[in-house]
């Protein structure tokens, strides 16, 4: 029911044990060299070069490869060579499971097909974004998985309005926000009206009537919904090599006043139309 990685899928189905999965992960860790290790292995750098670059990383927010180039230790062509070699020699979890005798090659193929089918509903569909935004694949995932989870978790029909760049979030009953850092610095914000907050609460709590629920519980259900969406986005992003760290969800104060997007940030908004008179808006605030 969620975005998964292949090893988890196999353990959940009882195809491989957790012990065998760990053995395969350990094999991967010993075989898959990090960029610095690979550059060292290929004779492009010395251990002292790597140490210098790691020291420089303490004060510069740069990836090791880019830093090695900026310090004149690697040429761009050598960096490209190292990355290509890293990709070509990467041992995938399925291959590692075959090597530790947890699966045969034929079983691996069968399970990969089953995994593809299980995860098909989470394949990102076309999302139209304004031009010039950074990290487009991750932004597309955030929007697409939000829409998919509205269907799967909230069981609602909806219509998406045009995505636009915005300088503020319109006033509404509640803003639930999830700070995201790592390869993408952003905040995921879901704005909901009173009626939709109750609709979300009914779906999350599996209750017909939520009228007597305290405000704290109603707010919590919206925060849990965005927690599920963002966790699944992090899982999906990891499949394309992007690391997203999510922090616990929070509510933003005074939603009735709206929210200005501060200088140094860009924001995109997707109006989500669900029912008459109700408003839902997905806003993604991205560090410019």
């Amino acid at each position, binding site marked *: *029911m969620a975005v998964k990685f292949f090893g988890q899928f196999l353990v959940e189905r009882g195809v491989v044990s957790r012990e065998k999965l760990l053995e395969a*992960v350990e094999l991967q860790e010993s075989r898959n060299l990090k960029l610095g290790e690979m550059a060292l292995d290929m004779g492009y750098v010395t251990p002292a070069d790597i140490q210098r670059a790691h020291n420089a990383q303490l004060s510069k927010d740069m990836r090791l490869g880019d830093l090695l180039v900026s310090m004149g230790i690697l040429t761009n062509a050598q960096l490209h060579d190292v990355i290509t070699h890293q990709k070509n020699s990467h041992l995938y979890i399925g291959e590692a499971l075959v090597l530790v005798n947890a699966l045969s090659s034929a079983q691996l193929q069968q399970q990969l097909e089953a995994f593809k089918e299980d995860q098909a509903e989470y394949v990102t569909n076309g999302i139209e974004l304004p031009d010039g935004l950074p990290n487009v694949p991750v932004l597309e995932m955030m929007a697409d998985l939000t829409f998919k*989870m509205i269907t799967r978790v909230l069981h609602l029909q909806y219509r998406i309005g045009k995505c636009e760049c915005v300088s503020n979030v319109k006033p509404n009953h509640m803003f639930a926000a999830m700070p995201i850092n790592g390869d993408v610095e952003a905040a995921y914000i879901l704005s909901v009206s009173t009626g939709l907050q109750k609709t979300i609460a009914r779906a999350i709590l599996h209750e017909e009537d939520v009228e007597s629920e305290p405000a704290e519980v109603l707010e*919590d259900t919206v*925060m849990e919904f965005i927690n599920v969406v963002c*966790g699944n986005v*992090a899982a999906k992003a990891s499949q394309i090599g992007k690391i997203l760290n999510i922090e616990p969800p929070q509510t933003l104060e005074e939603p009735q006043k709206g929210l200005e997007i501060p200088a140094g940030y860009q924001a995109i908004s997707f109006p989500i139309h669900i029912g008459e008179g109700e408003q839902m808006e997905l806003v993604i605030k991205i560090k410019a």
Partner: protein
Amino acid sequence: MKKVLVVDDSLSVARQMQKIIESSGDFVYVGHAKNGAEAIKMNHSEDPDIICMDMNMPGMDGLTALRSLVVLDKDVKVIMLTSLGGVGDKFTEAIKLGAKNVISKPFDAEGVLHVLREV
């Protein structure tokens, strides 16, 4: 019947889990802790057989609490309950630290009970 403690900062997750556990007939719900530190205290006071614990919580997070719980109580079985289960590194880190399984959010009653009955 096996006793289950739920650890999650979300009240709504605790409510869902309580409902699933109580309707199963196989397990007893012994309570809800809101973070890892409370989980360690409630493990001592309630002596659960199984702990279902979120990874991403304010205060002491789930993986930090897992490290302590497996040392403090060798009998308790910990299952991580998280929206981050699909992140390969998080899943394997939890298993390496001693979690018996990981349940991904969103979950359903059938999936939760299947995992609880297996541990």
